[in-house]
């Protein structure tokens, strides 16, 4: 573990990724302690103030402190998408390993099904589910988890096929081992690296998806401080009070870039090339 971290931070991109991600997680965790104001308190006498010593990032249309809202703004998105990413990674890699190991007709049929599913535009799919099930974490987490899991499945199955073709798996099969022991003892240990990287990548994409939903009004509901929602509510102000839009944008993009860089760095440190796995 320590060695992995050392390898990651030996590259500048890895160091930046790890720092950004760690910083964001720390902020999300500590926001209630470090935010100078309550992020939902409105103040009619302090509407749309530009950044100052009192309000570091200015205030929004309802007179709320943008700095405090930005600090809080990742909490919902990070926790919802982290839960979603865990679900996606668990079911996606589990199914992926099975299909990659079993192969044959069943694998072919299921993968065409997965391909067809992946060709559906993800935002339309999400909006459809939300319009039926209603907005809110209880709908969004399983939906994100299920949808992104299909993409994880595609990648892990490709990686699993490479592992399944190796001698020690053939040997295990020749010994007459059952499927379950092959999956857990031969396949999984050799795929855990890919799964880790894949999970991290999906997490960052899911963050973007959740923020898009908030932007459209179907993710977080007011008055929850949330970056996507903040951008949506103040986007009309881009030319007159740009700070109200700029800071949440910066926070969201720095977190997504951070996770992306980190995932790439982990992949490189572990010698994983996602593109090869995907191509199978």
């Amino acid at each position, binding site marked *: 573990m320590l060695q992995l971290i050392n390898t990651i931070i030996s590259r500048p991109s890895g160091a930046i990724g790890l720092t950004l991600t760690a910083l964001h997680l720390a902020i999300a965790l500590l926001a209630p302690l470090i935010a100078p104001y309550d992020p*939902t308190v*409105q103040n009619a006498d302090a509407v749309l103030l530009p950044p100052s010593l009192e309000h570091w990032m200015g205030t929004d249309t*309802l007179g709320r402190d943008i700095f405090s809202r930005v600090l809080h703004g990742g909490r919902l998105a990070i926790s919802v998408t982290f839960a979603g990413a865990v679900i996606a990674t668990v079911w996606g890699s589990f199914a992926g390993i099975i299909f990659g190991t079993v192969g044959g007709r069943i694998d072919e049929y299921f993968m065409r099904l997965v391909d067809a599913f992946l060709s559906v535009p993800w935002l339309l799919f999400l909006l459809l589910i939300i319009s039926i099930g209603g907005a809110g974490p209880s709908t969004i987490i399983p939906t994100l988890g299920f949808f992104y899991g299909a993409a994880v499945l595609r990648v892990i199955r490709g990686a699993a096929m490479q592992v399944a073709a190796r001698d020690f798996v053939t040997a295990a099969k020749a010994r007459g081992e059952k499927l379950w022991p092959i999956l857990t003892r031969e396949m999984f240990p050799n795929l855990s690296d890919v799964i880790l990287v894949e999970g991290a990548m999906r997490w960052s994409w899911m963050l973007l998806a959740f923020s898009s939903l908030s932007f459209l*009004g179907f993710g977080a*509901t*007011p*008055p929850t401080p949330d970056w996507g929602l903040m951008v949506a509510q103040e986007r009309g102000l881009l030319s*007159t009070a740009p700070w109200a839009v700029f800071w949440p944008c910066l926070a969201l993009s720095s977190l997504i870039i951070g996770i992306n860089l980190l995932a790439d760095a982990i992949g490189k440190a572990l010698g994983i090339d996602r593109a090869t796995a995907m191509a199978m």
Partner: protein
Amino acid sequence: MKNSLFLSAAIALASTAASAQTLRIPHELGYGGSESLDPISPQRFYEAIQNMYSRLVRQGDDGRPSPDLALNWETTPDAKEWTFALRPGVTFHNGNTFTAEDVAFSLMRTQSETIQSPTKGVMEIIDRVEVVDDMTVKVVLKQTHADFPLLVMDYRIKMLDAETCGHNLDALCESGNGTGPYKMVELDALGTTTLARFDDYYGGLPGAENLELIAIADQDARVAALQAGQIDFIYALSAEQVPLFANNPNFTVQTVPTGRWIGMIMNTTVAPFDDARVRKAIRMSADRDVLGKLVFGEDNYITNCDHPVWPGDQYRADIACERDIEGAKALLAEAGFADGLTVELFVSDITEGAVRMAEVLQNQAKDAGITIEMVRVPADGFWSDVWMKEPFFATGWSQRPADQVLNEAYSSTSAWNESAWQSEEFDAGLEAARAELDFDKRKELYGDLQRQIWEDGGSFIPVHLKTVRAFSSNLSGIDPVEDFSIRYENLTKEAD
């Protein structure tokens, strides 16, 4: 490269020449494409009917009724029979002559059971319409109404051609054949609807050759379209959008006090809103001045006590509605919600400020122990799927005279009684006010009705709005009057 430059220059020139005489007005696509050309349809295509048809009377500069298709009118001493003398020599777009027959037809069809027009509740006061001669019509009312011309001033009570509509009082008439300044060329409610000027319009030749009504459902998209010169006009800007146009020589900004309001409506037949104490408690928890400032900006609103009569109306009552958190808590406790109350509020970007108003109310009501959970729904189809269907929802109304809006939004039989409020006291009071010929007494009666709505009704109407319009500066002829009184035929546009 040279060729393509030349080509694009040619296209640019051609499009300027073509659009010089065309007014491009956005429409808000409130009915998702099912907009109707029948002025009394619940889904009337407002921007189109406004230009295609005319009324008997229209708002004068003083807000009083002034002649349009009727030149003058008089009543009997009991104010039950009203005789209108019509404007001679008026023709419909198809060449038919406008006569008293058309007036009788247009007025009586508003009462149709099958059409179920939102004007039905108001116009049911008409007992019958008698054709005295071709140019004279007598309207006999079921009961006295001292302000009857105000009722036919409604923007939906337009005069249709009885012949084109097949003399059928019970069917929608979407022919578009009116006497207004513009006639329909192509209807495309989801895209661009085109109207051309009517050369025989009785008010003189309209200014612009064509009107284009361009469907843009989203306010930010409308602002962007105006900035990019794709439309010429926006009815209402939000406070933070004003600076985008205020200091720009390409645009003119106009501030107009109006009777427009955005509100949150509680269905008085659904728990917990079936308890009048709960409704009053929610109203008492609001600080209207702070709300107005936060949602609409300094000086862009006039505070109000949850009834629809605007400050410019002659019948507006003075009511005090200071914020009273303790009072609200006491009412809630009495109603059985001593430990607080949680309700869902359905909002959408139907009009600028609706979502933010809900957010401010949510924040203010919290102090009284009321938790408002906001449910955001898409703006497309809001009026058909959410409005008057959910127990607590956002609404928005344009300006109407006191008697009309009190009747339309609060009398128990009205189709647009959005809070489903059933009050016999109110219905009787409204009837009494109309029968009262003495102005001061009438004003007192109308004032009582407003107080009843504040005490018992299902509305939260914290402010009336001032409108800030923006239009391209090559447009002239827009008077600083409320939206319904804009005369598009007087608008002219200089070539760029």
